[in-house]
């Protein structure tokens, strides 16, 4: 026969943001650490190698920070003017940076003075990157040119003059040492091949391009410019896959999560949005205090670093999961107890008897199943339950009322137990979603305990509190009705069409509950 059916716990829709696995994941960071830099933080870059230090480019300095320290491990300050785009090499041992005066400088991570200086750009170099073979550097400058440099002999290898405006962003392919892309203020993203002297692909973005990004596979190109983030398929000749317009202001930086499943974009509207790379829907968003210029994620998304226009660097670390381990683990039955008899193969003449899986019942359900009504009510009136999940308490009260035993369950309580009930009523009586059930319970309590009133000062005080609450609620409802009446009158004068009706939120007058006479 059918088993016991557990009590249906009334669920109420949660207003506001939906809780999804993404919100859980992206909210699982500690409170941000704020580091003040000297100027706007234009670039943050993580070293791809442990210990995953990160280089922060702000004003004329480059700071290298370790994972946990708030003080910089190292500082490169040999720039005459503003430095741009300090980027680690794949092995994490070299850093290249551009500068306002048109120079490109290469640093050893352990040294202080530049190893190489590439001279050739006439205007500010805003983007530099290492190619996949580690021996070349790509740079783009405000003189509309893109140059490829050879590291060993610090010579210029190639120059591309195809852009017609400032080149402000770029990135080299991680797979092919000869391919790199650049984005420019002439609204285009171009892909260059070092083996030819011309661009191999040009993609129209429609806005001045602020940031570009290649997917690890090199197949998809993400460009940000204006309010748009656009994703193009490189293998289809740059065909636009999707255009995202989720920011209110210019999108300044892009970043992929370590799994490649999520794309992050930072914008001047002080928001970072997280997109799913399968559906390109926004799954989460972060708020920051100032306009965002740069954004980087550490290995395994352990750290989010955001640089802002006011020179503040915000560093968020993921919450460590070690805490859960620290709880003393109860000794569990051995593995073999669980698989006991489970791996037995059915023989030919055996008769298989399936036993239905035992359904897990909550403790209050177990009590209700055995008709221990007072115990079930005690269980849900426990403070941990009433505060955390008042809907369970209300559902049990409702169920007891449905079974016609609420009065029995509420009767025969001592001072402490009845004050538990009254505390719960005082806390939740005025909530509209619980009111119908709790008013009924309050009436029953008053009926039961009216003869013994005056014997306990604690309970009397609670009753008075409840009375005050009810009176306040009645006043409140009356006021609301008055307001509603006024609004009705206004609507009636404004209504033009006859016949169609407007839905008004008719809130019932609170049932008169003035029985409390203590």
């Amino acid at each position, binding site marked *: *026969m059918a088993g016991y059916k557990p009590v249906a716990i*009334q669920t109420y829709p949660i207003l506001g943001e939906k809780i*999804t696995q993404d919100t859980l994941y992206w909210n699982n960071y500690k409170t941000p650490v704020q580091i003040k830099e000297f100027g706007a933080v234009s670039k943050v870059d993580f070293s791809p190698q442990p210990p995953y230090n990160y280089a922060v480019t702000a004003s004329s300095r480059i700071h290298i920070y370790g994972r946990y320290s708030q003080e910089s491990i190292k500082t490169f300050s040999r720039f005459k003017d503003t430095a741009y785009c300090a980027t680690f090499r794949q092995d994490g041992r070299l850093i290249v940076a551009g500068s306002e005066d048109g120079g490109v400088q290469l640093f050893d991570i352990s040294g202080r003075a530049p190893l190489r200086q590439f001279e050739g750009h006439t205007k500010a170099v805003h983007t530099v990157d290492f190619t996949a073979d580690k021996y070349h550097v790509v740079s783009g400058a405000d003189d509309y040119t893109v140059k490829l440099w050879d590291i060993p002999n610090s010579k210029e290898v190639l120059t591309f003059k195809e852009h017609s405006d400032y080149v402000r962003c770029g990135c080299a392919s991680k797979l092919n040492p000869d391919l790199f892309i650049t984005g420019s203020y002439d609204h285009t993203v171009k892909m260059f091949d070092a083996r030819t002297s011309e661009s191999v692909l040009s993609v129209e973005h429609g806005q001045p391009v602020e940031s570009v990004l290649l997917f690890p596979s090199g197949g998809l190109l993400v460009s940000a410019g204006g309010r748009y983030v656009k994703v193009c398929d490189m293998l289809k000749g740059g065909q636009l896959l999707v255009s995202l317009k989720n920011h209110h202001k210019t999108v300044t930086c892009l970043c992929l999560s370590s799994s490649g499943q999520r794309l992050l974009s930072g914008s001047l509207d002080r928001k970072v949005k997280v997109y799913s790379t399968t559906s390109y829907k926004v799954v989460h968003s972060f708020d920051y205090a100032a306009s965002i210029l740069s954004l980087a994620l550490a290995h395994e998304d352990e750290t989010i670093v955001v640089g802002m226009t006011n020179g503040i660097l915000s560093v968020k670390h993921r919450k460590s999961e070690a805490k859960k381990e620290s709880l003393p683990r109860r000794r569990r039955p051995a593995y073999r107890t669980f698989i006991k008899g489970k791996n037995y193969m059915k023989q030919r003449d055996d008769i298989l008897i399936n036993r239905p899986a035992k359904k897990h019942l909550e403790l209050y359900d177990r009590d209700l199943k055995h008709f221990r009504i007072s115990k079930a009510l005690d269980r849900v009136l426990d403070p941990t339950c009433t505060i955390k999940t008042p809907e369970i308490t209300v559902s049990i009260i409702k169920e007891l009322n449905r079974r016609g035993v609420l009065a029995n369950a509420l009767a025969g309580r001592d001072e402490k137990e009845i004050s538990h009930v009254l505390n719960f009523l005082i806390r939740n009586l005025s909530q509209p979603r619980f009111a119908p059930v709790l008013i009924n319970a309050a009436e029953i309590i008053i009926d039961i305990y009216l003869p013994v009133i005056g014997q306990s000062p604690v309970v009397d005080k609670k009753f008075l509190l409840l009375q005050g609450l009810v009176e306040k609620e009645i006043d409140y409802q009356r006021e609301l009705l008055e307001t509603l009446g006024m609004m009705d009158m206004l609507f009636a004068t404004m209504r033009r069409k006859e016949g169609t009706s407007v839905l008004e939120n008719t809130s019932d007058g609170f049932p008169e509950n003035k029985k409390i006479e203590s």
Partner: protein
Amino acid sequence: MVEEDSIRVVRCGGSELNFRRAVFSADSKYIFCVSGDFVKVYSTVTEECVHILHGHRNLVTGIQLNPNNHLQLYSCSLDGTIKLWDYIDGILIKTFIVGCKLHALFTLAQAEDSVFVIVNKEKPDIFQLVSVKLPKSSSQEVEAKELSFVLDYINQSPKCIAFGNEGVYVAAVREFYLSVYFFKKKTTSRFTLSSSRNKKHAKNNFTCVACHPTEDCIASGHMDGKIRLWRNFYDDKKYTYTCLHWHHDMVMDLAFSVTGTSLLSGGRESVLVEWRDATEKNKEFLPRLGATIEHISVSPAGDLFCTSHSDNKIIIIHRNLEASAVIQGLVKDRSIFTGLMIDPRTKALVLNGKPGHLQFYSLQSDKQLYNLDIIQQEYINDYGLIQIELTKAAFGCFGNWLATVEQRQEKETELELQMKLWMYNKKTQGFILNTKINMPHEDCITALCFCNAEKSEQPTLVTASKDGYFKVWILTDDSDIYKKAVGWTCDFVGSYHKYQATNCCFSEDGSLLAVSFEEIVTIWDSVTWELKCTFCQRAGKIRHLCFGRLTCSKYLLGATENGILCCWNLLSCALEWNAKLNVRVMEPDPNSENIAAISQSSVGSDLFVFKPSEPRPLYIQKGISREEVQWGVFVPRDVPESFTSEAYQWLNRSQFYFLTKSQSLLTFSTKSPEEKLTPTSKQLLAEESLPTTPFYFILGKHRQQQDEKLNETLENELVQLPLTENIPAISELLHTPAHVLPSASFLCSMFVNSLLLSKETKSAKEIPEDVDMEEEKESEDSDEENDFTEKVQDTSNTGLGEDIIHQLSKSEEKELRKFRKIDYGWIAAL
């Protein structure tokens, strides 16, 4: 069906199974239960109905195994007869005519040639237990008038009589008395509960009694839930009793196990309690049986119990208290709120079932298909509790959606209302809860309807409520990147001067919505939700509302409480016609323009079938039922009939079923009483409406060829040759399962003989007459329906000149039929 008899009202299936205790066969393979005028034989293993024993002309009130031959069964009925059956073959052996209404039947192994029955003699309330001597005679019908009086002033119910200790005494209870009659001494002792006489509100009335099979011990159940075990009752003074108390409500039935070691009891709690060794401590429970236990019986072999429940269900329970099989009829325990509906997918009848469930009931096989748990909460069966009731349900979008409304109202102000929307899942072949809406309205929902237009792109549901609003709910996309989901949301709320909305209805194409607000009908455009026009007749509140269909879709019909039926033309926005008719039920036929209306008068209910285009009804049937008809529904036919007569054309495409206040499900049939309404296994075997299996095609082809050949021979030789189908021997041969036929060599000569042309000259018309008769006779014993008009068909063979060949074939046919009957016995025993 070309032949057209008059349309009659017939009861279709769903009769009570729980009227009396079920009886097990000696080997526990079968279980018998009374069901209206029939006795049904079920297999305890497969839950299938093996035989239906019909022959009684009134309610069957008792069945018992023949103690002298456990392959035979006695049954008694209100028609005053006791019949003896061979239940394995389903054959009536003998009929004993007693002549007065028999209310219960008991048999005793010790009293070999007599049985005990309960009769009432003079006053309507006074019943007697009498013993009837069954005379030994070879004839089929025997008069048994030899009654000897045993006990007087007893209760009508057989639960209040028990024979004990191998027939030494009989115990009977009524109100506060327990009387024991000793057969040897021929004396009666009467025991009274001491407290009952003086106390005014004593609730310890006796409700049932059972006797220990071997010891002198009587168990009695009481109204207050106690079970008393009486011992030592040979002495009027020194008798003792002990009390067993677990039930908190009336004990409905008691039964001792075969050995007498344990006592079974049941009641409203729907828990079967097994008391071991008659002690209070040693008890076992089988809880949650679903509904009040009405009867408990024990198999003679002792391995099975069974409980009959108030929701028309028999549960067969193994000795170790594990339910092993459920025989479920149409649940009729509770009032029907949802009305009758047809599930568009399964064509099953859908209505309220057991508490909190919708039942899907197959009209074809007279069997419950399944229960859908709507409320999904533990059901506490207790007197005076206000339960959550399933009040409304509707199917939409060709069975893809089901909307249900449940409510519970304790006081005037405290209303709990919930609307649930269920989606049909093709994978699991069932409905899955999709959306749950708490308090969709502030007050009770009065009507619920889906927009069932074929072209509608978005499923739409309208609810009308007493709070003065109607709400339009639409299906919206609720999916995000994690999952695909759909859900229902409110799209529009409409009202008309704060009147209570009482009915709602979509037009056939879904373009218009009609909502009635008390006396006023409003028409809304379903695209813009604008009020288009209003109709008001000031003739009382609108009770029913429906649009015409097909060619009559420009008409809107409304029936009011003051007994006026109005028809409005939607094109001219004017009243087309009205008629004075106190309409209780108004149902449109989904397959035609016809609308059936059932009106209620002091005499009974009348049926009117009409088209909205003209006020003159197509068909009127007066007095379809003496009671009030509550619900009706048109069920589309699988195969359309072709009635040529104008009066019956409304039954061509659909069949009309209706439910009366006492919850009997009735329908209209034109078939002659001999033919069964619902095809059972037998008819399926014998009728031509064979399922189109590959075998059928082979057989059909074969027959066609035969027909053609015959036609050829007819033309060529101008000799009247009987068609193969009309020769009973052949049809028997073809319709009998191959595995039960005798060897081919045995049949061959018979078969060939039947095909031979007779040398005798015979008139052509004689043959079909004879054949007709054969068929009549054959269908008579498979007849199951309950004929209200009680047409007694004389089917006895009148002396007609029959030629030799057909005599021959008839005897052969009998032989074959015997084979067929034997076949049922052993197949079911498998």
